[in-house]
């Protein structure tokens, strides 16, 4: 009950727009000229001091992108994006390679403090926070700081910005970049491949269990910019890593584009757990502004007995277009997808997963909970397929939708393709509203309607919450309460 109480308190303290990360930070920045052509790609590559092969890779992606058209199959509606009216690169002026935290713009540090993201290792060590989390903070187009690098290095784990990885570990990057999401995979992935500015790189060597949670914090600050980050995580044989990403942006009237690509590679017996708490600015109560979140996330269970688990909590963004997927290539590999998608106001969510079973006896599990309130549209779209030769495959899918109010919509679009007889596929989906009986029961025991709704909703999503790292569970519960604020009555 304490959590519910806290949720309500939290709700009360937030401003009218109900988005507490809506502040803007005044930081001088360097931007690429507006618009997109080959010179923009060259500009970004040069800014990053990239080797020739990387530039060529980008140019190839750009050439492919030019020939592609925007996908229109998702159940989302938005005015056509003018890709020439965007800045593709923005970086805080003073952060051209800070050597230590002391060199980072104090304004920037204050911002992260405000967001509750710990960037100071000392504080963490002093026991201010109970668990250690290494953070890579990405501000607009560049990674500003990565914490706990030294300690991770001792364990052999590489955790740095992708720009640094391109410079320092070109062999690893060359081998894995684009191997899960090829340059021409889809419109937004191609765009990202051409203009990605930064992101995180993780390599966990053979047999190593990453000693702490890794985390990236994305922040869009600059106006009219698109953010295109690229994350690449490789877990070598028998390695284990848990990774969390969080995102926020200032409140703005315009729509901003965020097109990220995340690639995960798990080799034999490796395990990657990837959690996302996405809280981009969702637009105001009339649907003005907000982030367009067009993201390609895919994990490749390349090795025997490997495992990739996606957990996502989607509460932000005006439009979400995101399908974290698993290619279950290895025999006995395992894919998991746990999702909570909350939409309110005029948000549009089209999200889900793909479980592509190629390996024998691979298994997957999908638990998706969609909550639609206000005028929002919430769609689950997913694919489960078993290749002809992938025998002994198992999948269980459960997607439940909860509707709050009669102006919203909840949709389920699953594709289930069993190409051999030994595949055991089970799929179930339900849509319902919070039953009056449940609310009545709670209210009769002294809870207000809003408290009762928060309680029921948190119960509804519990299956998924359990799969989040401990530290973020409480935070997420609050987030859900906040996102639904104003949806009752």
């Amino acid at each position, binding site marked *: 009950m304490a959590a519910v109480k806290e949720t309500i308190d939290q709700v009360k303290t937030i401003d009218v727009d109900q988005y507490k990360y809506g502040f803007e930070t005044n930081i001088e920045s360097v931007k690429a000229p507006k618009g997109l052509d080959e010179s923009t790609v060259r500009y970004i590559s040069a800014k990053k001091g990239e080797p020739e092969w990387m530039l060529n890779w980008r140019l190839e992606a750009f050439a492919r992108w030019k020939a592609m058209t925007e996908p229109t199959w998702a159940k989302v509606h938005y005015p056509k994006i003018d890709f020439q009216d965007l800045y593709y690169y923005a970086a805080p002026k003073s952060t051209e390679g800070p050597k230590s935290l002391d060199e980072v713009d104090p304004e920037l540090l204050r911002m992260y403090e405000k967001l509750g993201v710990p960037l100071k290792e000392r504080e963490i060590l002093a026991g201010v926070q109970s668990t250690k989390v290494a953070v890579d903070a990405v501000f607009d187009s560049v990674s500003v700081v990565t914490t706990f690098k030294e300690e991770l290095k001792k364990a052999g784990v590489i955790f740095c910005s992708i720009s640094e990885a391109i410079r320092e570990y070109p062999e690893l990057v060359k081998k894995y970049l684009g191997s899960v999401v090829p340059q021409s995979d889809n419109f937004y992935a191609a765009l990202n491949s051409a203009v990605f500015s930064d992101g995180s790189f993780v390599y966990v060597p053979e047999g190593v269990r990453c000693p702490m949670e890794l985390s990236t914090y994305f922040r869009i600050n600059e106006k009219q910019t698109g953010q295109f980050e690229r994350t690449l995580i490789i877990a070598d044989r028998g390695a284990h890593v848990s990774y969390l990403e969080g995102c926020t942006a200032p409140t703005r009237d315009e729509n901003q584009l965020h097109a990220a690509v995340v690639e995960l590679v798990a080799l034999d017996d490796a395990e990657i757990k990837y959690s996302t708490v996405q809280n981009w600015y969702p637009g105001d109560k009339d649907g003005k502004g907000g982030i367009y979140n067009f993201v390609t996330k895919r994990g490749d269970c390349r090795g025997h007995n490997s495992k990739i688990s996606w957990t996502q909590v989607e509460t932000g963004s005006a439009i979400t277009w995101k399908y974290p997927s698993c290619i279950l290539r290895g025999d006995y590999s395992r894919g998991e997808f746990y999702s909570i998608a909350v939409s309110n106001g005029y948000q549009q969510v089209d999200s889900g997963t793909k479980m592509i079973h190629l390996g024998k006896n691979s298994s997957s599990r999908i638990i998706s909970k969609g909550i639609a309130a206000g005028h929002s549209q919430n769609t689950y779209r997913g694919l489960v397929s078993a290749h002809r030769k992938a025998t002994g495959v198992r999948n269980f899918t459960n997607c439940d939708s909860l509707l709050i109010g009669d102006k919203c919509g909840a949709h389920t679009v699953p594709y289930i393709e069993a190409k051999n*007889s030994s595949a055991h596929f089970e799929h179930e*989906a339900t849509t319902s509203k919070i039953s009056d009986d449940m609310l009545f029961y709670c209210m009769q025991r002294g809870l207000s309607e809003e408290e009762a709704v928060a309680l029921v909703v948190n119960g509804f999503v519990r299956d998924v919450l359990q799969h989040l790292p401990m530290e973020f569970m409480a935070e997420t519960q609050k987030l859900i309460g906040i996102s639904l604020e104003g949806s009752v009555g």
Partner: protein
Amino acid sequence: MTIAVMKTKAEQALTEAFEVNAAKLPGSTAVSEARRDAIGKFSASGLPHRRIEEWKYTDLRNAMKDTLAVSVDDAVKVTIADVIVALGALAHVDAHRITFVNGRYRADLSDLAGAEGIEVTPLAAALRTAPPKVAAGLTAVGAAEDAVITLNTAFMTDGAIVRIAPEASLAKPVLMVFLRAGAEGRFTAVRNVISAGEASTSTLIEAHVALPGASLEGQMNALTGLTAAKGAHVTHIKIAADFGKAVHLSNWDVTLEAHAVYRGFQYTSGQSLARNQIAVRYDGEGGKLDLSGAFLVRGTEHVDTTLVVDHAVPRCESRELFKGVLDNNGRGIFQGKIIVRPHAQKTDGKQMAQALMLSPDAEFDSKPELEIYADDVICGHGSTSAELEEDMLFYCKSRGIPDNEARALLIESFIGEALDKVEHEGVREALSTMARDWLSAAEKHK
């Protein structure tokens, strides 16, 4: 992006066949105009292909490369004994019979003696005299952009117009037999228009069967438009059992008025390619729908069931259960969409699709969809696919039942759950017999 696509041989042939046969197709000027309009639309769209979302799993352009001679004025000799042979187990069902051979009404093979509360008119006769308004009613069915429907409008030769009088309660089912006969394969299009009057009770059966010895090839395009008026109870069954390289394209377009109760069932077997499209729309509150089906697939057969249930008004109920048995390289497809429109509160919808795969090479693709815009609803769907459970088989065998019998028993009980949805005992028995025969033939087929 629009890409100019080359017309396939079949598309070209169908457009040309229309020009050749236009004068022979029955209909008044208004009807001919509607036909010409339809073929124009078809010519522009072509056959549906996998790039069209609804046809993702059934690429008709690829599967129907050739078209057969269009059936008009067919005069194959068929006797009543032939009809009984073709009907097989269904012949035992005591029913009023309306028979069509290669898409043409045959009064000599029909028997409507003693039928009360029902009026049957052959479509061809109605089309010939149809004034513009009636013609518009006869030709405007279903989604106008659907290529299969436009082809039906262009080429329909006959069918049954059935009117069930208000408050009539039909003692016997009405059996509409669509017989494929003759040594020459035909492309046949038929259309039925059924209206069940207020508070009437009726059972309608469509049987698409072939005469033994008929050509191995045949292409059927059948469309049934059905309206159940206020409080009407309608049971509607379609049996499509063929052989050889038969292609069966079917559309049901059902409208339910307030408090109408509609029980639909479709049985499909022996079709080389079948696409069963069902669209149900609620037009008044309190409507009830129970839609189910069984499909038996083997060899390289391909059976697709695609349905859309549109809850456009509040307080309606829908239930769907479709079960398929897939053997050899057979492919089963189920696409089921439940739409709940804004304001359609208190909707109760449930859908289930299940496939049993008997061979490692079988394939089942399922896409159950929910599109919900109202909050006070209970909707759910499920989809499963699996092979026979070893544990169950073991249980049977440990009780002394031989392997093949145990398998047959389990398959029968699986499909039986769908067949049990058929309330008419005679029809249910006939379907069970047909399913059993299919299973024993499956053994031989191996």
